[in-house]
């Protein structure tokens, strides 16, 4: 009756129902939230209106409190397909700026996380002294101080992609460290003993036992890491004066009250996150299959 049984049955229909319900609630909220302003407009113009007029007009405002889903969809279509990719008004251009910082930060964070995890697993002093600080480092709201780091790095002459990527690195190394430490320690004593009876060196134990064993953990952490990298890159774009990137679109939209623009940037970011996470998932199943895991 709970998730155990739920995973067994088909998921497509329930998910579809939930998504349709969300869109339905969104439309209802659009009408409800936009009505006060629309009634003001009618009153000022002194014209009569029917309910169907009201419903149609609430979904066609220029700066609605909450834009209707189709307004956002049209805006996304206009700014992706109908604009040239190099144009500053193209969402593809802004998404690419954010994506490049995300991927750079994600790559650096993953490498840093794996290196730290290897050091932690192989050296007891590192384990005891570094591990508590790795955990403590995440209670510092780095996202909150990201703008300052960006501004300070800009003052030194570092600008563009790297500062944003560094924020993403800081955010994404943590899940990788925690997951990989767990993964590299996952081989059981009996398996390590077997390696010892083969008189395997530490390097051989690492490459033939610990590393393959840690792959599922690595991919699980990378899913979290790539999602959080994207958040880091977006927040990193906020303080640079709204030049480029999805974060800049959000900020510019909030300055000028362009709600449709905010929502289209938001949904693009959401789609980007979904694509990135599922790409890691695809890589995961490919690698596990190559390693001979049964599905």
């Amino acid at each position, binding site marked *: 009756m709970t998730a155990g049984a739920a995973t067994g049955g088909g998921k497509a229909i329930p998910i579809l129902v939930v*998504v349709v319900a969300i869109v339905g609630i969104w439309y209802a909220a659009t009408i409800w939230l936009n009505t006060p302003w629309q009634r003001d407009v009618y009153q000022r113009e002194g014209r009569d209106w029917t309910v169907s007029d009201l419903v149609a007009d609430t979904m066609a405002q220029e700066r609605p409190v909450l834009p209707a889903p189709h307004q956002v969809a049209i805006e996304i279509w206009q700014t992706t397909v109908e604009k040239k990719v190099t144009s500053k008004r193209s969402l593809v251009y802004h998404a690419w700026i954010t994506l490049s910082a995300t991927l750079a930060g994600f790559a650096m964070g993953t490498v840093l996380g794996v290196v730290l995890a290897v050091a932690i697993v192989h050296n007891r002093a590192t384990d*005891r002294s570094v591990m508590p600080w790795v955990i403590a480092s995440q*209670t510092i*709201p780095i996202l909150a*101080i990201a703008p300052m780091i960006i501004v300070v790095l800009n003052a*030194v002459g570092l600008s563009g992609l790297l500062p944003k990527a560094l924020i993403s690195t800081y955010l994404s190394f943590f899940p990788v460290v925690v997951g990989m430490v767990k993964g590299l320690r996952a081989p059981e004593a009996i398996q390590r003993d077997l390696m010892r009876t083969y008189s395997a060196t530490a390097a051989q134990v690492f490459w033939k036992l610990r590393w393959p064993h840690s792959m599922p953990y690595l991919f699980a952490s990378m899913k979290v890491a790539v999602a959080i990298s994207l958040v880091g890159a977006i927040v990193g774009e906020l303080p640079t004066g709204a030049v480029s990137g999805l974060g800049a679109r959000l900020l510019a939209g909030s300055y000028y009250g362009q709600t449709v623009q905010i929502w289209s940037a938001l949904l693009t970011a959401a789609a980007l996150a979904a694509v990135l996470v599922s790409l890691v998932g695809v890589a995961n199943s490919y690698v596990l299959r190559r390693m001979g895991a049964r599905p």
Partner: protein
Amino acid sequence: MIARGVSRLQTGLAAGIGLLGLLGIVLPVSDSDAVGLINAPLLALFAGLAVASLARFGVPLPVAADGALTALAGIALVSALAAVDRGASGFWCLTAAGWLTAWLFVERLTAVGRGGWIGVAVPVLFGVTLLVLWELLTRGMNVPQVLLPPPSAIGVRFAASIPILWADFQQTFLKAVLIGYALGSGSAFLVAIAIDRSPFLQRGLLPVGNLISALPIIGIAPIMVMWFGFDWPSKAAVVIVMTFFPMLVNTVAGLAEAGRMERDLMRTYAAGYWQTLVKLRLPAAAPFIFNALKINSTLALIGAIVAEFFGTPIVGMGFRISTEVGRMNVDMVWAEIAVAALAGSAFFGAVALIERAVTFWHPSNRQ
């Protein structure tokens, strides 16, 4: 001639300390020619003892001796800064020697055992070492204040502006974070209980909830500011949305945790749905729920502070950070960061303590 059980790493560290100490005596410590080791007697003492510690290759030194040497290194190096002003090669050799001393001390301490106080002392030592190195590097290399102020300057600024920091803390943490956290986690918990009886809704909501937890929800901050105004309610709204989905997903997963056997046992007792829920399934879900509460404790602080970048009244931690950066008062920004770090750690620690008290039966708490 080294005692048994000494690793290659320790031998290397010990040799490095002696060598760097020797270099520190030979090379100039300061940029100005008028200043030498003579002007910093404590530093001279440390350099001498570092060289003398090479004697450990003949006679093993006790761990406590390394501890004393580490403490001396920290005090000597920091107090020498006043005389040295701008460090030269000798000073940096001694800094490196001090760092290796601390490292060797930690290595030996962890080899001794993992008794109660060692478990606390090792990470504390690591943190203090980082702070001392930060102080030495920023002041010894004359790094501009704007770039990275030394910890001592941050501490002075912190002490001097406690009223402002307290007002910001009240606005951001006590209002936006705590209220948003309670409402977000609480409502997600109630929704999870409500959909518990409908496998259909769970099958649909779980994947969608998992997807939404991976999304950059922080992006709704400008919308919330537009809807709820500049004051704390808009920040609390962001926190509510951010904390909702992790809690929902974890609670639903946790409620599925109780095993078939235990549930059958409850049925043989003729327990109703609510009795089973309260006496079996909620306690079994507690580790999952606390996991979400811990994740949310950091998410909430981040959400509230970032939301303040999109518009605030003239008080609040996010407001202070963004305006003081603009005025290049970086030490004030760091003081605010220290408040955020302390509040975040304390919040997380409090949740962890409650978790330990409530789920005392869980294997990870029993060892």
